[in-house]
């Protein structure tokens, strides 16, 4: 949960004009907005191979040769990947990390605070860096990445045995492992995919392939006792040391916990499983039949299913409700506890619950314009760009962040007045 207690929930509207930005710079890239809604920023071109960031109309103190992947951290710091004289690093509010690298990419951001990690290449060796500090160990390759929820631990799938391309038999012996904070497991695997770090930052789980055919989950280097014909991403229980992952057996998918089948109902597909915040319930996106998609909670699928896809499932903060997005043909639906809203959209973003779970809002797109919908009502703020709505800690107000006619608006609207 984002802690918005210190934010301004009183001022009804704040405006930041952006209309002169285009005239001031070579070009202005797509804007980003801070979670608290107080800042709007974009990468701007300031000359040949010269870039800067414009935040609320002011630029950072200095240019860089190149800037990309501009994003705000939850604490309001503005970060980007930047290069100077052929070297790369991260800049936070305009100040580059002290360490420069051969290249940085795949930024990861902590969920609730101000940590940030990147994948690093230096002299053709690979590792990760967190808040400017690179791992002590480097590897021949790094492929999948993870940052713990608390933002203080990083992990990656790393190549620990050198094998040239073409050395297929050596490769099959296992050349990959997983590293937490740079330190690789002793065990190697043919492949390591989709790592996840436990909430306390102490444990690491990943999908592994032990041969070309045997898939399982490894936790801290130890594999589950059973192998499967395929597995998908593992997830840690929020408080207990359990790991759940979808596993494939006999052509169907089931949910397993610590190597034992947890949901024995077979699905054509099962993925994106998640625990409720208290850890008592599990939801997952499932295909109960071929070409039918829905959400299952504790193994039981919603009655209604959808043709194309279901995505962005999420528990309400109190764990009682589940929202998701569904798509049929070109229409997107917001679905709550199995029931779709009557409104359909050209695109929709993950539903956002109020703290008590009573209200649900979502950013949506229709006919090329954006808006926020609340409880199946389309808001009056139809705009050129919008960001996810955020409820106040008491749940009585909703923060809207949007751009219309080259002006950025931060608007706080009481929930009861939203549709007016």
């Amino acid at each position, binding site marked *: 949960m984002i802690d918005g207690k210190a934010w301004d929930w009183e001022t009804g509207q704040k405006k930041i004009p952006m209309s002169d930005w285009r005239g001031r710079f070579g070009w202005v890239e797509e804007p980003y907005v801070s979670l608290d809604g107080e800042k709007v920023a974009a990468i701007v071109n300031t000359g040949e191979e010269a870039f800067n960031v414009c935040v609320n109309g002011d630029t950072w103190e200095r240019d860089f040769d190149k800037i990309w992947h501009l994003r705000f951290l939850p604490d309001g710091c503005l970060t980007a990947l930047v290069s100077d004289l052929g070297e790369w690093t991260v800049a936070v509010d305009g100040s580059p990390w002290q360490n420069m690298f051969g290249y940085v990419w795949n930024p990861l951001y902590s969920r609730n605070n101000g940590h940030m990690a990147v994948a690093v290449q230096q002299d053709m060796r690979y590792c990760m860096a967190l808040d400017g500090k690179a791992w002590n160990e480097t590897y021949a390759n790094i492929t999948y990445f993870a940052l713990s929820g608390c933002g203080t631990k990083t992990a990656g799938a790393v190549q620990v045995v050198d094998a040239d391309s073409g050395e*297929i038999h050596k490769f099959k012996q296992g050349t990959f492992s997983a590293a937490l904070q740079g330190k690789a497991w002793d065990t190697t695997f043919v492949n390591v995919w989709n790592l996840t770090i436990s909430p306390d930052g102490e444990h690491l789980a990943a999908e592994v*392939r032990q041969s070309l055919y045997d898939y399982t989950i490894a936790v801290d280097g130890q594999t589950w006792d059973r192998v499967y014909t395929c597995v998908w991403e593992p997830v840690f229980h929020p408080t207990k040391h359990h790991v759940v992952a979808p596993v*494939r057996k006999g052509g169907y998918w089931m949910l397993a916990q610590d190597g034992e089948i947890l949901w024995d109902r077979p699905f054509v*597909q099962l993925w994106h499983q998640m625990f409720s915040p208290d850890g008592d319930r599990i939801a997952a996106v499932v295909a109960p039949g071929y070409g039918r998609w829905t959400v299952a909670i504790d193994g039981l699928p919603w009655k209604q299913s959808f043709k194309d896809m279901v995505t962005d499932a999420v528990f309400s903060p109190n764990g009682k409700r589940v929202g998701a997005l569904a798509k049929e043909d070109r229409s997107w639906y917001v679905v709550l506890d199995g029931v779709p809203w009557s409104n359909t959209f050209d695109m929709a973003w993950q539903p956002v619950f109020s703290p008590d779970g009573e209200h649900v809002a979502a950013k949506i797109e229709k006919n090329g314009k954006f808006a926020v919908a609340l409880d199946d009502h389309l808001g009056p703020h139809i705009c050129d760009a919008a960001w996810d709505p955020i409820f106040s800690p008491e749940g009585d107000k909703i923060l809207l962040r949007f751009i219309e006619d080259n002006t950025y608006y931060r608007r706080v609207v009481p929930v009861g007045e939203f549709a007016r």
Partner: protein
Amino acid sequence: MTEAAKKETPKGLDQGIEVGASSLTGEKIEGVIKSVLDNETGARLKTYVDTCIHCGLCSEACHYYLSHDNDPRYSPVGKVKQTMWEMLRKKGKVSPEFIKKAAVISHTECNLCKRCAMYCPFGIDIAYIMSVVRRIIHRLGVTPLYIQDTAHSHAVTMNQMWVKGDEWPDTLQWQEEEAQDEIPCLRIPLDKEGADIMYSVIAPEPKFQAQLIYQAAVIMDVAGVNWTMPSGIGWDNSDMAMFTGDNELMGRIKRTHYETASRLKVKRIVMGECGHAFRSVYDMGNRWLGWREPPIPIVHAIDFYYELIKSGKIKIAKKYDQPVTLHDPCNVVRGGGLHEKARYVIRAICEELIEMHPNREHNYCCAAGGGVINCGPPYKMTRVHGNKIKAEQLFAAKAKGAKTLVTPCHNCHSGLEDIVHHYEVGLGLKFISDILYEVMEKP
């Protein structure tokens, strides 16, 4: 693959096949064949096998057969006879030598092009049967070395050419910079959430043919498309695992591709000029995952260029003046029905289109597709000699005046390059985007 590893291996000495077969036992072979046939094939294979009357009408469809003086061993049904029928007849009790031969036949003497299915009175899909043979070969660990290496690349990097995580965005940024010399404000927008289109390519583009990314960026920019490319995995739409029979890996690659697009909240995926990748995203990979249709609409480059030209978003300054002939790639034409749109595009950008014969869905395969070219140098001559008929077809188009051969598919492009070179056909090769980029109006 390194140059050292690329040394020509005499046929029959593929280290993927040889080393794999050296550890096979009769028991293992029988068990795997039984397991695949009992658990993975169902009614489809049985129906095909029971329905075939051995009439041989499919033979005339196959370029290998036609190019080998009608040698029945190269006929579609002949390939089934030498592989699947034996496995069925002997109930899986076949030798490692047999398996080695089956690996060579299924992987290098059939392009899974499905031309023969159109000639069989019962519509028997030999390509499907060959895919089942490849699945057995995969499960036995006897897949040819080069394509197995490609599958390993997919497994590690989610792209087919071992392109590392940093190399991909670095290449895009380099191409963006190059293109800015031509169009100063041009961008290749990375990870732009909410763009209309995600553009995806296959890994040979960043590896060897970065100019294709450059051209695509210019086309997108001039057409005013709201587009993006992912900076992380999911950018490669290709899928050699589909051709090695590693269905689990195929599914993983396709999931990555579609979920990347889903995360970027795009409405469509546009893909470059690749045939097999198209088959993997709209037919094979999506279905293995449980998506009956692509969850996010996927548009092949031919279809996209058609849309851009037809809507006037791209205008042609001066048509390409050399007469061209068009090779219809199996996966986008026989499989995807894009032949008339391809002709619309060619006529819009070229002065003259000289048809090769046969054409459209009846066109001969390039003999590179279906993963055959990915089996590498050891089999180069298998596909070149196995497609003499293609050379004859091209010579005939050349005799009618064609100077340039347009091939809107990567595999076809590389395979036909070898054929044009070996048989000294004397045609220049181009992708549609090479010509489109050259002739379109630019600022």
